[in-house]
């Protein structure tokens, strides 16, 4: 079973794990993800591969603690094994020399944005990056993204660092300044992707987003992750996770994300109760 080689806390709820996984590291391309299980009888959850090194045989996952499964994952230590790790899954990002790229990451979405931006830069694109978070202590990979970008804009909801406002506001500003882009990739919470892509698509920029629906198997056999794209049903795990932002039924996708909220709440409450001995 794959061992954890390195563990870092990137912010209050966000962790980066380096995991020994030679096969996955060798086959993996930017944009792909893995399915992880932290315990026997645990849930299967998808996590994007944030980085990998084929020569050294490791992958890195960056995840935010959101519910029971990620909470359990977050208490593992270096040397512990991940019970199940399967991948690399999903279609790799389509990388080409578009020209001027606008790469936008919100919250933990910056993690999957990094390898894509890396690949875009390697393909000879000019990179403008916007990274945003609720507050400065939640910004991720600022230094790494700065190294890749010709221009980096940081924004926070509360103004504790950089521009005060959302990524969408920063895009509007750039467009108002007369900036032109040939391609945009936006990754972050669903609502953020919806609103921000609304601006880029509206400006005629070809925009790709990486969707994060609920997944069960991740290999295309159940349809739990299905989204409507261009009026057709697509499976995010095998047809995606990236899709043309202009064609997505955002309403439907966001509604489906809420399908298990009550289960998620109860599950986390029970877990906290068992672990701490106190009701949530």
């Amino acid at each position, binding site marked *: 079973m794959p061992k954890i080689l390195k563990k870092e806390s990137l912010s209050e709820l966000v962790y980066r794990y380096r995991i020994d996984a030679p*096969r996955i590291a060798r086959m993996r391309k930017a944009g792909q993800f893995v*399915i992880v299980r932290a315990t026997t009888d645990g849930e299967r959850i998808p996590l994007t591969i944030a980085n990998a090194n084929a020569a050294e045989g490791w992958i890195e996952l960056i995840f935010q603690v959101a519910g029971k499964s990620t909470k359990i994952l977050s208490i593992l230590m270096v040397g512990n094994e991940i019970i*199940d*790790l399967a991948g690399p899954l999903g279609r790799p990002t389509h990388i080409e020399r578009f020209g001027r790229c606008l790469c936008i990451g919100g919250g933990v979405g910056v993690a999957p944005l990094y390898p894509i931006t890396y690949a875009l830069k390697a393909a000879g694109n000019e990179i403008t990056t916007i990274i945003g978070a609720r507050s400065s202590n939640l910004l991720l990979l600022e230094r790494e993204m700065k190294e890749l970008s010709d221009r980096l804009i940081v924004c926070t909801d509360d103004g504790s660092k950089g521009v005060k406002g959302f990524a969408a506001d920063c895009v509007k500003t750039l467009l108002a300044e007369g900036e032109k882009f040939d391609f945009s990739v936006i990754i972050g919470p669903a609502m953020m992707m919806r609103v921000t892509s609304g601006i880029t698509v509206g400006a005629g920029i070809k925009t790709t987003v990486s969707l994060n629906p609920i997944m069960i198997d991740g290999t295309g056999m159940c349809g739990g992750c299905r989204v409507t794209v261009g009026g057709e049903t697509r499976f995010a795990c095998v047809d995606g996770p990236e899709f043309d932002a202009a064609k997505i039924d955002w309403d439907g996708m966001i*509604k489906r994300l809420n399908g298990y909220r009550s289960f998620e709440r109860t599950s986390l409450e029970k877990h906290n109760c068992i672990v701490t001995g106190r009701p949530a």
Partner: protein
Amino acid sequence: MREQDPAVRGRNFNEVPLGYTETEAQTEARRCLQCKKPLCVGGCPVIVQIPEFVNLIAQGKYADAARKIKETNALPAICGRVCPQETQCEEKCILGKKGDAVAIGNLERFAADWEMAHGEFTMPALNPKNGRKVGVVGSGPAGLTAAGELIKQGFDVTIFEAFHEAGGVLVYGIPEFRLPKDIVKKEIGYLLKLGVVLERNFIVGRTATVDGLLGEEGYAAIFIGAGAGLPAFMRVAGENSIGVYSANEYLTRSNLMKAYKEGADTPIIRGKHVVTVGGGNVAMDSARTALRLGAETSTIVYRRTEAEMPARSAEVHHAKQEGIVFDLLTNPVAVLADNNGFVTGIRCIRMNLGAPDESGRKRPVPVAGSEFDIPCDVVIVAIGNSPNPLIRETTPDIAVTKHGTIVANEADGRTSKKFVYAGGDIVTGAATVILAMGAGKAAAKSIGEDLAKK
């Protein structure tokens, strides 16, 4: 065979049939006429030596009976439970002409269960190792059977399974109350004892490709038994509402991820009123699972009549006994949902059987103006599966049909690609466990023949 009472079993996940006692088994076995020219054997896709094993049961030699079956059928405890014997061996039984056929399936199950409970493991005869590696893609019935045959031939065998648990449909598709997972684990355990290596969480097409395995990784041959795991959807409005599940998703959550157990990490929406669309075994499994998960009503909606339903008659019978409602000659036209996207009902239309289509079957035709709504909170779509595109998309030179199935001779498993073989649902489309097993066996034989010439 004695069965659990329908009212009781409709609320638990225990098996429906209760198994034979030794007396019951011997009594049934003695009914067999031991025909000089047995017709039953020809009805079996893997040619189990039926009169021989039945005779051994009649003599009280249960371990020998199990061994006899295993000469040709690697997974008797499974087949004894899920084979449609009534359209295979039992249909041919001469006693069935005037009365009841010998209960061959029940006897197979008895012998296999007896051996599991009492039998000592004896290593079967294995050929000496020949130093060659064969890869098996998928640990469902086709792959398990192929692996079992190949290891006996002296190959080093590795099974690549995409999921975290082996068994394929045997674990994710067929529910606990039809096939206890404990039994599947034991059958797989037997293969591991023979020396088969199992690599879980390995998705062929992504973790490695078929060409990669044949090339750098040095596999002499690959058998593809990856199944038909891509669910078909109805393509009606509202189909992506919360509470609409493909049968694969519903059953995977319940069976593989154990959502049927209280407090499981993987949730499942336990609908109060569940509608399952479809008429095959998968639809029966879904509707009966819904009941066991606490549904007040569980309804099957099927566009044709019972005569056209592909499900095993035994399972349709069990479903009816448990109180599942059958809305036949009915087809969905839309799924209804509330403002938050949760299912509130399914709009259906009545059908009539009209003129026959090209296949000769009467085509279902909607009755204009007959729309009506069935209030429900969960809809399970069990209208069929086709193969997952991953393998064909990453193995560009393998011939496939327009349905996405791999082109292979059903008799020998050979595909258009040298040293690549295929069998089971990935070749035939969704079918049965026993047919997949027969295909796995045939392919293993071909692999032995072809590699001997190399």
